[in-house]
């Protein structure tokens, strides 16, 4: 028998459909309480418009797998960061031509340092592998992606930016 966790783990992200919600790290918990499946998810960004879609997709998948009583809860804390994207998720992103984020670790307490120039993070081109790439725009087609270009193969590509 398929468990609720297996069903929920297979649901894909509406904006990055190469990833499951589990790969992306927004699926926090799946539990069963008195026959009711409780799924906890967390938003990537405060204004992420996909969060409701995620909830609806989870509910639909679970219902069609036979779990009729489903509750989707939203958890804000601990806040999602790109470090929650699994290694498998990173590999899938790269395979789909989207550069995965670097691991950044926890935010330090105290004032956040100012960056007067974009941080010179090395992001390898997902097409040709060259490290010779630069940022075109910090803000891309969705809240979580930046737009970059490769100077070796001249292709533009998306990068899931570190947050």
């Amino acid at each position, binding site marked *: 028998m398929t468990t609720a966790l297996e069903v929920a783990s297979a649901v*894909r992200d*509406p904006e990055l*459909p190469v990833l499951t919600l589990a790969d992306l790290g927004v699926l926090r918990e799946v539990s069963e309480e008195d026959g009711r499946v409780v799924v*906890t998810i967390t*938003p990537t*960004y*405060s*204004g*992420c*418009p*996909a969060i*409701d*879609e995620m*909830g*609806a*997709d989870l509910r*639909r998948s679970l219902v069609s797998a036979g779990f009729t009583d489903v*509750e*989707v*809860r*939203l*958890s*804000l*804390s*601990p*806040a*999602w*960061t790109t470090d929650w994207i699994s290694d498998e998720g990173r590999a899938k992103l790269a395979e789909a031509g989207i550069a995965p984020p670097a691991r950044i670790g926890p*935010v330090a*307490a*105290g*004032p*956040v340092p*100012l*960056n*007067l*120039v*974009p941080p010179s993070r090395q992001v390898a081109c997902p097409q040709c592998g060259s490290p010779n790439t630069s940022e*075109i*725009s*910090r*803000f*891309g*087609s969705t*809240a979580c992606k930046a*737009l970059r270009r490769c100077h070796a193969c001249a292709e533009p590509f998306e990068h899931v930016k570190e*947050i």
Partner: protein
Amino acid sequence: MSFDNAYESLLGGEDAHWAFGTGFSEALSGVNREFPAGVDRDALAAYCLMLGDDALICSQRLAEWCSRAPELEEDIALANIALDLLGQARMLLTRAGEVLGKDEDELAYLRDEREFRNVHLAEIDCGPGPGGDFATTIARLLVFSSWRLALFSRLRGSADPVLKAIAEKGLKELAYHRDHAAQWTVRLGDGTDESHRRMQAGLDRVWPFVDELFATHSVDTVLAGVAVDPASLRSEVDGVLEAVLDAAGLTRPADTKAARVAGMAGRDGVHTEAMGYLLAEMQHLHRSLPGAVW
């Protein structure tokens, strides 16, 4: 649901999958929302309205640039920043609404001007309309995001679990906003004579609204331990702005203060002339067609 063909979603199917604008659930559904013991709930609601309205109104101003920014990437950037702020506003208004017995839509669309608690800096018209300029919008974003980032950084220590979670969530978003504005300020200030002139003019335009950001309100005092006293942020924010202006070769404008009305300002519900026009545009659809969705 298949995403192989985007048009499938547009053509109906199981539900209105494509309509991201429709039927959002409550912004805080499922979040642990117990009120900490001993907290003045009315003051907490007032505080959430202040921070929520700042984000909502600034978001509305940024969204006005949609399709009108100087380049496509910037159009997307400003819209993304507006979206982050809108998300913060939704969570904060929902928190306020739990005390007030209203939902986020009622608070955003059905309050009158005097009930909004945002600072004047968020509401002033910096463009793209007549009299505004992209550089003025960047100047506002620089000041606003530097201040809000400092505030959220401290708010991570709030005794209210929801405010704490909202701050932790929004912190890195605001860091991106501030860096974006700072980098544009340097690019324009240290660019051509014309870009320098316009960036300086933008700073001069917004500077009289800086002082209000650091004024302690009675709500901040009542909510000690939950709220952040904005006066405590001044030196940190000044330091950031000074570093940006130095790198950009710009002059810090003189510390003039915009006039108040009988000693009152945005936090008291007293607004500038621009606010009524902004609200008319933001609210008219909902007020004309209550419950309208798209």
